């Protein structure tokens, strides 16, 4: 059972390999140590405390909480963004710029920016059809009614979001204002002349 590499029972084929007794360079062990420390440090900073709710790029539960809406105003905007992204953006586009043949723009739209939200409340509740001028351009499309899909809170939040995004700046919309507009029962979609004839703000709002 000698491991002598020189003893070669079969001529022509070298002996089976044997392990030598070279030493491990201390630099290699040091490098492993350094890299291991780096690894621990990296995990400490980027592993989010091994929490299930922490996803890149957040590094701790605190950062996640800070990134979420913390006051009522932010929560309303968040809800409005949620509805807008899921529903309205399909036609009005995520950047609110609209698309010819699909939906008019909301960014900079004089209808959206009107100080009182009554007209757009009616539009969003009952839908809108027929010719309408938005930012000097003619549009003649149909928007379906949303009064049976979303409640007052959602619609108010959506309008608030629309009125405060992409450069728009207008007062928020309250659920009560939507509720008051809802009381006007209208059989089908509104038309531009109809909503123009309404007051911008209902009395008492």
């Amino acid at each position: 059972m000698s491991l002598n590499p020189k003893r070669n029972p079969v001529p022509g084929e070298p002996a089976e390999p044997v392990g030598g007794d070279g030493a491990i360079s201390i630099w290699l062990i040091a490098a492993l140590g350094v890299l291991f420390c780096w690894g621990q440090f990296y995990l400490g900073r980027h592993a989010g405390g091994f929490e299930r709710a922490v996803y890149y790029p957040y590094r701790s539960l605190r950062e996640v909480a800070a990134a979420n809406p913390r006051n009522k105003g932010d929560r309303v905007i968040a809800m409005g963004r949620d509805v807008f992204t899921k529903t309205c953006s399909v036609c009005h586009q995520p950047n609110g710029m609209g698309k010819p043949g699909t939906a008019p723009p909301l960014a900079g739209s004089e209808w959206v920016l009107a100080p009182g939200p009554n007209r757009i409340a009616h539009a969003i509740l009952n839908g809108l059809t027929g010719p309408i001028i938005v930012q000097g351009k003619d549009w003649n499309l149909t928007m379906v009614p949303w009064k049976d899909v979303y409640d007052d809170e959602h619609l108010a939040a959506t309008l608030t979001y629309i009125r405060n995004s992409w450069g728009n700046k207008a007062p928020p919309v309250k659920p009560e204002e939507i509720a008051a507009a809802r009381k006007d029962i209208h059989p089908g979609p509104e038309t531009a002349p109809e909503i123009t004839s309404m007051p911008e703000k209902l009395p008492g709002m």
Partner: protein
Amino acid sequence: MNNGPVVFLALFVAMAGSWLAFVMGPELQIGATRPTTSIVAGMTDEIYPNAKPGAARQGAEVYRANGCVACHTQQVQPAALGPDINRGWGVRRSTAYDYLFESPLQLGTQRIGPDLANAGRRMDANSILVRLYEPRAITPRSIMPPYPYLFENHKITGIPSPDALQLPAGFTPPTGCEIIPLPEARALAAYVTSLHQDGYLYEAPPPVEKTNGPPPTAKISPAK
């Protein structure tokens, strides 16, 4: 290192380490994930995600059987790590909640075709069907293969079928024939249109906009 059982034991420990880290540990932590109420809970009780409708579940099987996962991913990377959000493939990154009802999970690892995580928000069933029949009818230089075997081409008898595909010029079948999607094609289209990941999640909130652009310049001078 000359003792067989010692080597085996040490191998077991090393193996167990990775198994704990990537199988057992996550199973204990996120394996029990259930649909969550939206982040704006308290104001609403929407549940996310919702189970897929039946046709979409059948479509998932067609997706798997034809190996669509070989070219398409279904995951949106965070803005810091990938171009997904910039390209309009999603509004936020994907998280564990987005896949609760996916089985088999077809996340994919190759983007030979665009990401499909939010395909349901970009495409409707009809355009998906046309794209399956002949991708170049919609994207002229597409390298996506056509799937003609998911459709049948038959002669129009009587009135044309309302289900027939509306193909653009140059791709229409010979006169007198129409292309009808088979149930597999419809199921697949239902599946792709069911793909969307835009429920608002605590773990992946969209960036909170503190101000909405620069304040407008005052047009009215303040009263003295």
